[in-house]
């Protein structure tokens, strides 16, 4: 076997913060072969970005390599001069960054930015068109003349990839390149990378937190935890039998497509990742590990090789490998309350939301009807720009709808928030997306929680304190958290407090706007379960908004798919993955990378860009990109609602029989894994 392309040996990287030296990576061994696609997964704070940058010897000013080596070919990058590194960047190691919107120079045309690279690598500048065509850009000449802000996120990322590939590097380092993108765009980018990899035989170090991407793209995966390599294995082996409890925990945290809260609970991982510099001289995962035994707390495990091509850093891998113990956490028993008769809580009719903009009126929601019933969850799924958040904000009253009617418990709500009385306010509460913004950083948790008690429930301030304790307990937080400031809480804890606050007024309807999208998967699972439990307990109706169809599928009872301000399809959660679908749902499902390398997936890709909501298409809003475009009827006429036997409603001109004939289930599970 030829020597690896990149080999990290006992690599340790630290940051200097003030007078302290904080270890970001410890003793990382890793090697990538030429042409290999290597996935690097981990939650935030695991050190994966540091590893990506260290592999290129490009660390922030306060970061430095403490020990170990970075062998690239026969050179140790850790020992090269800045000039020698500069000569390798671009030519031998390419880089694709995380956020394409800020990674391009905003005041230089993208074509010029690529040409600059070509010139540097002594290539012909006219290759630009060729390169852009390889990126499957329809009109390369026009795109090359544009500035970054004129391009969509997907196009921007294409530019960065073409730039990174223009030097024909042996290794491409990608740092979460699709995290900021919508799934349909992500799918296209992943296709591109696959194609480029095959054509150029470039090795890739692909850093991501998304197990789905890893499962579908990579040959081999390394799992990083708290700066240490937990496990490293060929992708399929890792998914088939993870040897490290952390890997197992990660896999158990991610809802698989079709997984449901009431059938198969997500397990998640308790606790949280240690902060930088907080590591113990033992197994770093011991505090969260369901299998931790005495030795785990005393001795740091060594990096062992159970088989020639995988490594793991765990004391108990032999037992796990042998199947003697299961690293899966025991499932919390959900508090099953007998289901009461569902009565309708929310009825939205013909809702329209528009925002005045300098260039015209942005029509965010264009006539949406939805219903929500007590004790049940309506999931709304859609990509950015679909209007799903505006829908929630209009219902709660944070934006005033321009048209439409919102009834709560059969009573029409005033559109303006200030016109709604306390009773209405207490019936409607919301959990927001960003836990960092969810709580006022200047108020203690107790203060934040006592406010709705006082304002909406009329609790006397003196009595509020006791009830705050109950609220905290309900979201599984200790009572002494009441005295903490938000800065002393982790993201998941903040979101728990936000949920407690929303439930404080005992609302009839809870709106949850992407409540878990900013959280790490291990935390996400716990929050989703918490929401499910509280809902059952209070028989609250919930409007759950998310971009992740797997998450929605897990939590919701009904699912509405939105596109460009309109609902394309509604269906019971159980049947969302079964044909027939609305063509958009079909494309969406075929774009989501399943966190399971054994799943086979139809490949349907959307062409073109999302139309502007200022000037949305007539007829069917999806007609400009629809892979099953029928013809003029789609352009000219609003589609009818078609109802299927399994309870779906599909907003499409294509007759159901045609859909049933042409569509098969997008996801095919190997064996009978579908639960």
């Amino acid at each position: 076997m030829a020597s690896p392309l990149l080999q990290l040996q006992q690599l340790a990287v630290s940051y200097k913060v003030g007078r302290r030296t904080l270890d970001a990576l410890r003793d990382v061994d890793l090697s990538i072969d030429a042409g290999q696609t290597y996935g690097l997964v981990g939650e935030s704070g695991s050190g994966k970005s540091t590893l990506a940058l260290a592999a290129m010897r490009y660390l922030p000013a306060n970061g430095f390599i403490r020990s170990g080596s970075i062998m690239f070919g026969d050179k140790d990058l850790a020992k090269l001069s800045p000039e020698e590194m500069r000569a390798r960047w671009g030519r031998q190691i390419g880089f694709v960054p995380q956020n394409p919107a800020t990674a391009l120079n905003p005041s230089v045309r993208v074509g010029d930015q690529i040409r600059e690279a070509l010139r540097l690598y002594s290539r012909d500048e006219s290759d630009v068109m060729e390169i852009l065509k390889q990126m499957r850009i329809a009109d390369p000449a026009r795109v090359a003349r544009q500035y970054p802000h004129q391009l969509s996120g997907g196009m921007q990322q294409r530019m960065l990839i073409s730039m990174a590939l223009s030097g024909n590097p042996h290794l491409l380092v990608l740092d979460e390149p699709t995290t900021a993108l919508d799934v349909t765009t992500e799918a296209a980018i992943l296709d591109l990378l696959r194609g480029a990899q095959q054509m150029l035989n470039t090795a890739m170090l692909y850093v991501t937190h998304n197990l789905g991407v890893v499962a579908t793209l990579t040959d081999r995966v390394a799992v990083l935890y708290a700066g240490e390599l937990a496990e490293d294995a060929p992708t399929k082996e890792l998914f088939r039998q993870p040897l490290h409890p952390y890997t197992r925990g990660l896999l158990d945290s991610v809802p698989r497509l079709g997984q449901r809260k009431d059938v198969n609970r997500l397990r998640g991982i308790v606790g949280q990742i240690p902060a930088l510099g907080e590591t113990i001289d033992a197994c770093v995962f011991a505090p969260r590990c369901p299998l931790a035994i005495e030795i785990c707390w005393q001795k740091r495990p060594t990096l062992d090789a159970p088989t020639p091509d995988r490594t793991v850093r765990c004391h108990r891998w032999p037992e796990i490998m042998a199947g003697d113990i299961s690293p899966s956490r025991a499932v919390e028993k959900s508090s099953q309350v007998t289901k009461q008769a569902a009565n309708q809580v929310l009825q939205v009719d013909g809702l329209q939301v528009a925002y005045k903009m300098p260039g015209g009126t942005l029509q965010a929601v264009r006539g949406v009807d939805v219903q929500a019933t007590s004790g049940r969850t309506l999931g709304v799924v859609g990509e950015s720009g679909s209007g799903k958040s505006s829908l929630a904000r209009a219902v709660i009253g944070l934006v005033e709808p321009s048209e439409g009617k919102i009834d709560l418990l059969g009573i029409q709500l005033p559109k303006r928030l200030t016109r709604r009385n306390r009773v209405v306010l207490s019936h409607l509460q919301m959990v927001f997306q960003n836990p960092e913004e969810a709580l006022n950083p200047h108020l203690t948790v107790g203060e934040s929680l006592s406010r709705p008690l006082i304002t909406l429930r009329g609790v006397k301030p003196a009595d509020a304190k006791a009830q705050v304790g109950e609220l905290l307990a309900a979201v599984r937080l200790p009572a002494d958290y009441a005295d903490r400031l938000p800065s002393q809480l982790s993201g998941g804890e903040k979101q728990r407090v936000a949920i407690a606050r929303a439930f404080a007024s005992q609302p009839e309807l809870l709106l949850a706007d992407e409540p878990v999208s900013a959280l790490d998967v291990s935390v996400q699972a716990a929050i989703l379960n918490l929401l499910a439990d509280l809902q059952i307990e209070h028989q609250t109706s919930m409007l759950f908004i998310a971009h992740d169809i797997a998450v929605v599928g897990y939590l919701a009872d009904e699912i509405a798919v939105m596109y460009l301000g309109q609902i394309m399809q509604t269906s019971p959660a159980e049947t969302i993955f079964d044909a027939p679908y609305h063509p958009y749902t079909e494309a969406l499902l075929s774009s989501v990378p399943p966190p399971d390398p054994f799943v086979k997936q139809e490949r349907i890709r959307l062409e073109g860009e999302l139309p502007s909501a200022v000037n949305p298409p007539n007829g069917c809003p999806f007609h400009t990109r629809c892979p099953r475009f029928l013809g003029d009827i789609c352009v000219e006429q609003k589609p009818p609602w078609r109802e299927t036997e399994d309870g779906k409603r599909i907003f499409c001109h294509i007759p159901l029989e045609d859909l049933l004939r042409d569509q098969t289930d997008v996801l095919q599970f190997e064996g009978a894994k579908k639960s």
Partner: protein
Amino acid sequence: MASAATADVTKQSAAPGWGQRFFSLARTLLRRPSHALGTLISLLFLVIAIIGPLLAPYGANEQIVADARDGPSAAHWFGVDTLGRDVYSRVLLGTRDIFTLAGIGTLLAVLIGTSLGLLSGYRGGWFDELLMRFFDSVLALPALLLALLLLGTLGPSRQSVLFVIVIVYIPIVARVVRSVVLSVKTRSYIEAARVQGESSARILFREILPAVLPALAVEAALRFSYAIFLASSLGFLGVGVQPPSPEWGLMVNEARDAVSQTPWALYFPAAAISLLVISVNLLADGLKHVFQMDGER
């Protein structure tokens, strides 16, 4: 990753009290020598402003005929001016003048500007539009021009200078506050407060105001340093505080004719202005650092 590396790594079990938070901020402020120096000198001047009369060996207008025009000596550290007044005493006593003018002026401007900025930013709509257009038109006048116009109307006096500082700085403070409010009011916790039916007053003062305070502290320090400048420039132009007040700008103006005779009477108050302005600027820099607003302009 760099941001992760600088993240707060200490998680305490209970919320620190205000006193504790103040001391932790103060520690950060004093960590860099330049910030510490600026803070300490500013504080020193503040102390002098308060207890100056106790320290000054002579009165502000006390004339020692025999020593008139004497240079710095043990008896008169900063020398004596042409009217036989002890420059050291005058500089000490003038500190109070500057602090009452620039300090109280800034304080009032900050109070009023903050209220207007909060209201304008939070309410939005026609009120915001109207106020901002009005402030735009005020800010279209360079500060000194506006000051001169107003002083022409009001006549030169201590109160006029105070008024001018307040008027000139209200729009600036209000704008800073408003911009912070605009960025804060869309945060989830404010929206959460709204959907919980909190009153506007509580949202403004309990929820938004704390977020404005860091920017306000920095802005107040900067405004203070500019106010010192403005007050002393007006004094220098002879349209500000009137003699025989020991206001530093006025002292420079008065000593200007006699610069070759009694240069100390000019250079000491000039140095005092510079020292105070530089110190306050350093303090502002330090505050920016403390509140992690380093990159902002």
